[in-house]
Structure formats: structure tokens, C-alpha cells
């Protein structure tokens, strides 16, 4: 099977689905680049090249470059979706959501509910998340927790190329608004991706490592950090299980609880927020539903409660690191040894 990057996997998903279904359109800033102006058409294909080549295959009617107006992009996508199109709208950086959150939160997310189930809003919002790109506080956040808090939105954050393709196709075929978070640092991560189209259901966690001693739940880029720690500790005989929920809404609580029941110890690694983020949300769920499984406190490894710093050393310190995750795992294991020797 061919290895493809996350960038290629998403591009392939869009291309295959657009070929299958003429109702799918792409709309956003520079999703082709140069269209309609004096510049070279398809100069960009999206700021990270994810939609490159699609305008050549599907034309300007279906790959639509917009002015720099996020509220217009999201409003147009939500409206088009209710008329029967399946727009894939791009919000270049999730940080820009401030100017268009009404279209997402109060419009797209509410249509099905407020029209008594008679309206569908099959739109996908693709957006970039993540620190580590030296892009400063307004282009580096991982705001998926904001969207997860809104009923009516489905939230997807692939950590690998296989998942990226299958989740994107699922997102396009879904009849509700889906927010698809792409981490800037992961676009070149490659793994085996089938050429055929396939879908991965939402709300089904992926176990990237199996283990008995500690469970780590991690999202998006943090999955790779968790895997790195699991592999390092495996060489010392510590068996770490890593769960990638793949979607935060719906959340596969059952798999998290199943794993914690086995290990009794939980570390959550989350780039979204120190307060009211995904880590706190999952910790609360496990404390409520699985308290009797726990043999120690739940550890949350998150970003600090600050804006993402621009200074490189501070930005590096901001991101949950393998060292911090490893320390959290070791703390849980140390408390086990202390108790056993007491």
C-alpha cells in the first residue's frame, strides 16, 4: 500500500469525493490562489497546499477563492449546505473564528434543531490548529475545545494520514456540520493509505499503543508525543496504552473507560487549553463514570493558561513535551510503588 502524507491524504479524499458527488464545492481564501486575478491560477492550493490541483480538475465553479471575509465564507457555506450542496469551507487558521463564530455556532449548528429536523447542514469546516510554527499568538491556537462545547457540531482531529482520509470522507458524507482540525505540524506525516475511498465512523477511538500500566489519551499532534513516551517507557518494561479518540464530539467515552478500567491510571495530553479544555472535560467524565477504576489521581498535561508565545524558547516550553508527559506517567507509577511498599 502506498505511503501518503496527511496533506496528500486529505487532498485525495477531497478529489475522490468531488469526483463522486457534483454537489461538493470548496470555498475559502486562496483555496486555489490566483483565480480571477492577474496571478497564476492554483498558485497556492490553500496556504499549505492541501487543495492544490483541485481547481484544474473541477473548475472555478466548484473551487471558489473568496475575499478575506471569514464571516462571508462560513455564512455562504452554511446557506449553501441547507440548499443541498456539500461545501467544504476553509477557515485558514482556527484563530480567525472570532469573526465568524455566529455563522457556525448560532446558524449551522442550530438549523437541524430549530427547524424540527427538517433542515440538514452537510458542511465541512476545514481549519488549521497548533503551536510550534513560530506564527505567534493569533495563528497558533488549538481551539477545538470551543467547538466541542457547541451541541450540533461534530469535531474531528486526525493524527495520521490513514485517519485523515477516512475521517474527511466521513465528514463530507455526514449530514451535519463537521469541524475538521488539521495540525500544521503534521501535514508531512506519512503512513499507509488505501487508494480506495473509505470512511472512519465518528466516535471510535484508535488504540495506537496497547498497554496495562497507564492510559494516555491524546489528540492530534499530541498522539505522536504520547506514542514516543510509550515507546521509550516500553524499553524499561512500563506498558503504556495510548488512545487517540480521533473525534472530540462525539467522544468515545466507552473506550477511554475500558482502558482506564484495565490500567487504573490516566494521563490526558491536550494542546487546547489549560482551563475548560478537552483534558479537563475527559478528566471530569472519568472521575464521574470511572472513579472506582482509578488507582491514582488523573494527570492532565496541557498548555499553560497563556497566549501562545512568539519567542521560540517560550513557544517550545508552551507545548506539552515528551518530557512532561513522561514525568506525569512516572508520577503515577511512583505513587503505585510507594503504596505497595507502605
Amino acid at each position: 500500500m502506498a505511503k501518503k502524507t496527511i496533506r496528500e491524504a486529505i487532498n485525495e479524499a477531497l478529489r475522490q469525493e468531488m469526483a463522486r458527488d457534483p454537489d461538493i464545492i470548496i470555498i475559502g481564501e486562496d483555496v486555489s490562489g490566483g483565480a480571477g486575478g492577474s496571478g497564476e491560477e492554483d498558485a497556492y492550493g490553500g496556504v499549505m497546499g492541501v487543495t492544490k490541483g483541485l481547481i484544474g480538475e473541477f473548475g472555478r465553479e466548484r473551487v471558489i477563492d473568496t475575499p478575506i471575509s471569514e464571516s462571508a465564507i462560513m455564512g455562504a457555506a452554511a446557506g449553501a449546505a441547507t440548499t443541498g450542496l456539500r461545501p467544504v469551507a476553509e477557515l485558514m487558521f482556527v484563530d480567525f473564528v472570532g469573526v465568524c463564530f455566529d455563522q457556525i455556532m448560532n446558524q449551522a449548528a442550530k438549523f437541524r434543531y430549530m427547524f424540527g429536523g427538517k433542515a440538514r447542514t452537510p458542511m465541512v469546516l476545514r481549519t488549521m490548529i497548533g503551536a510550534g510554527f513560530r506564527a505567534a499568538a493569533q495563528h497558533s491556537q488549538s481551539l477545538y475545545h470551543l467547538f466541542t462545547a457547541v451541541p450540533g457540531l461534530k469535531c474531528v482531529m486526525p493524527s495520521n494520514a490513514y485517519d485523515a482520509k477516512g475521517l474527511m470522507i466521513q465528514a463530507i458524507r455526514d449530514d451535519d456540520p463537521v469541524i475538521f482540525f488539521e495540525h500544521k505540524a503534521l501535514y508531512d506525516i506519512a503512513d499507509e493509505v488505501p487508494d480506495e475511498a473509505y470512511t472512519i465512523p465518528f466516535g471510535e477511538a484508535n488504540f495506537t499503543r496497547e498497554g496495562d500500566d497507564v492510559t494516555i489519551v491524546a489528540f492530534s499532534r499530541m498522539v505522536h508525543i504520547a506514542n514516543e513516551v510509550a515507546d521509550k517507557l516500553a524499553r524499561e518494561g512500563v506498558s503504556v496504552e495510548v488512545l487517540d479518540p480521533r473525534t472530540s464530539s462525539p467522544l468515545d467515552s466507552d473506550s477511554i473507560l475500558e482502558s482506564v478500567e484495565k490500567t487504573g491510571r490516566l494521563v490526558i495530553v491536550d494542546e487546547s487549553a489549560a482551563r475548560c479544555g478537552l483534558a479537563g472535560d475527559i478528566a471530569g467524565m472519568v472521575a464521574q463514570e470511572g472513579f472506582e477504576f482509578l488507582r491514582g489521581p488523573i494527570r492532565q498535561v496541557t498548555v499553560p493558561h497563556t497566549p501562545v508565545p512568539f519567542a521560540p524558547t517560550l513557544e517550545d516550553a508552551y507545548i506539552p513535551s515528551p518530557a512532561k508527559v513522561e514525568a506525569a506517567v512516572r508520577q503515577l507509577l511512583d505513587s503505585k510503588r510507594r503504596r505497595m511498599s507502605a
Partner: protein
Amino acid sequence: MSLQALKVPKWGLSMEEGAVVEWHVAEGAEVGVGDELLEVETSKIANAVESPVAGRVVRIVAQPGETLAVGGLLAVIAQAGASPDAAEIDAFVADFQASFVPGGDDEGAGSSGPQTLEIDGARISYLTAGGGEATPLVLVHGFGGDANNWLFNLTELAVSRPVFALDLPGHGASTKAVGEGSVAALAEALLGFLAALKLPRVHLAGHSLGGAVALEATRRAPERVASLALLAPAGLGERINGGYLQGFIAAQSRRDMKPVLAQLFCDQALVSRDMIEDILKYKRLDGVTEALETLSAGIFPAGRQAAALRGVLEDPARPVLVIWGREDAIASPADADGLPAHVRVEVLDSVGHMPHMEAAGQVNRLLQEHLG
């Protein structure tokens, strides 16, 4: 060379390393060819490693819990009659480890990855290993399976002949179009595959539904089939575990799929997360659910087998081997009762519906004997 390295085997294309679970023999043990020496586990499945030679285990190198790359040194065996001293063994181990390159070992990698054929516009994917002039062997998997089900058999059997394992239509990486979804349609696809590869005469080995496909292909083109090996085959009786089929088609999640797959094995611990994930990856492909539903409706209508193919076994000139697990929960070994006298029937204890996986060494030996 009187000393022989026992190495981590390569089971299937994706295997890169294996972990030693436990040794069944101690240092100094006398062993025969085919004796199970130890249990090795991959992320997908565990299996026994058998002795390739008769002799004495003079050094156990890899201890339980250790993970080694494919081709890595598990133990040193002195061939019968040899009595090396400790220094010779030390030197042998040192030489091996000094020259061993993980991933650079091509042993057991006789299968070079999936190949693809276009037959009448339909894509057929297959694995192949081995070569030479002997009559080729073609392996046909069962319902919902694929060529990788033969991971413990393909390269083992390729020692003495070319071996091919195809993905039937609707399965693996082959086309998901299954036509009317009958045993006859699959048998035509199998015969088309043989024709495309220019294989005029082959041995056929089929598992479960693949057994019925092999039988039907034999009925249609008897001159092309030198012998038949049927593992827990369909086509010999009416009963089939309809609950398994429906469960397999319906399951979309790991939690739903696990109890379904557990029915395949006597030792249900063999069902690993990776095995489940591989099957889910297949089931998520566009067209698979429809293909499985069509096949199930056409081949097992109302939970019974539609194809009655016992008559194919009447010809005493064609050797037939039937292998069945006594604990098979999908198709009953009782279906092998009352077959013609020239049919060899082997029912294996403590084995479920997947004898080629669960008792791979035994099945490989039976197949080698059968093929001659």
C-alpha cells in the same frame, strides 16, 4: 555447517518484529524437525516457531519478553551428530549478531508485496512466493478474509513450488464488484485469475467459502485442478453459522467486531486489537458492506448453504485433503462425514474455524504431504 541459527520468522508482509512469549524447550533439548520450540507474538497474532532441523538446542539467545527484528537470532541449534563446544557457539552467535542488519534480511520475504491484475476490467490483487517447475498451489481465502489469512502458510509452502494467494472479488484489495454474489461467480473469477497468470493446472487449497469456490472451480474445469485441499470448507453441507455472517457484516466498531471474530478461534486470545483493526480497515472501504451483503444473500440465503458440491469429490483420480478444527463454531466438521474413501480427512483437536492460522505448522505439514 553443524550449527544453525533459529531466527524470527516473517509472518506476513507487515511483520517487522516479534516478541518471545515463552520457550517450550530448554537449552540442551533434543529436537526434531517441526517440533514447536517457542511462541512468538506480533502485534497481530501469536504463533509457534518450529525447529527447521533435527538436533539439539545448544543456546537460547532471546529470552521471554524480548522483542527482536524479523530475522533476529532466537537460538542456536546444533545439527544431529554435532557437538560444538561453548567457544564455537559463542563465536557463531557473535558472528551472527555482527552481520545481522534488522530489516535487511530478505529471508522469508519471498513474497514481494501485493501484485495486481486487471481481468475483464476488474482488479484482482494477489500475493505470490516461490518458483520452479512444480505444479503451482493457489490459496483461496474465506468470507470476509483475504490473501493475508495465509501469512503462516504462503512462504512455508513456497519452499517446493510457486504459491499464489488471491483476494477474491469483494475482498482485500481486489475489486468490490461481486456480480450476482454466487459461488459460481467467484469460481469464474478464480478460473479467470488462473487463465490470466497462464497457469494451466494447479493445486487448489480453499478455506471456508474459498473451499466451496475451489470445489466449484473444479466442477467447471476439472482438467485444471491437480488436487484439492479444503480447510473447514463450505459446499459440503447445508449448515453455516448465520449469526457469525450477519455479525461480521453489521459490525462497524472494534467493540462489535471482537466477539464476532472470537467465534473463529478455539483460542480466543488470538484475536488482537491489530487483527480487529485490519478487518475494520477492510470493512470501511467503499463497496465492501454491499459486497458482503450480496455474497451472503447469494451464497448463504436464509442462513443455509446454497451450493451443494460433494459430488465434485467423487473422482478418485484427484487427491483430496480435508482439514477441519474440532472446535469449529462456523462450519461443522460433521460435514466431512461420509465422503468418498479416497478423501483424506483430518480433524484437529483444540482448533476452531481457522486451522491454517491456529495450527499453522500442522496444517503446513499436512499440505506438504498432500502435495507430495
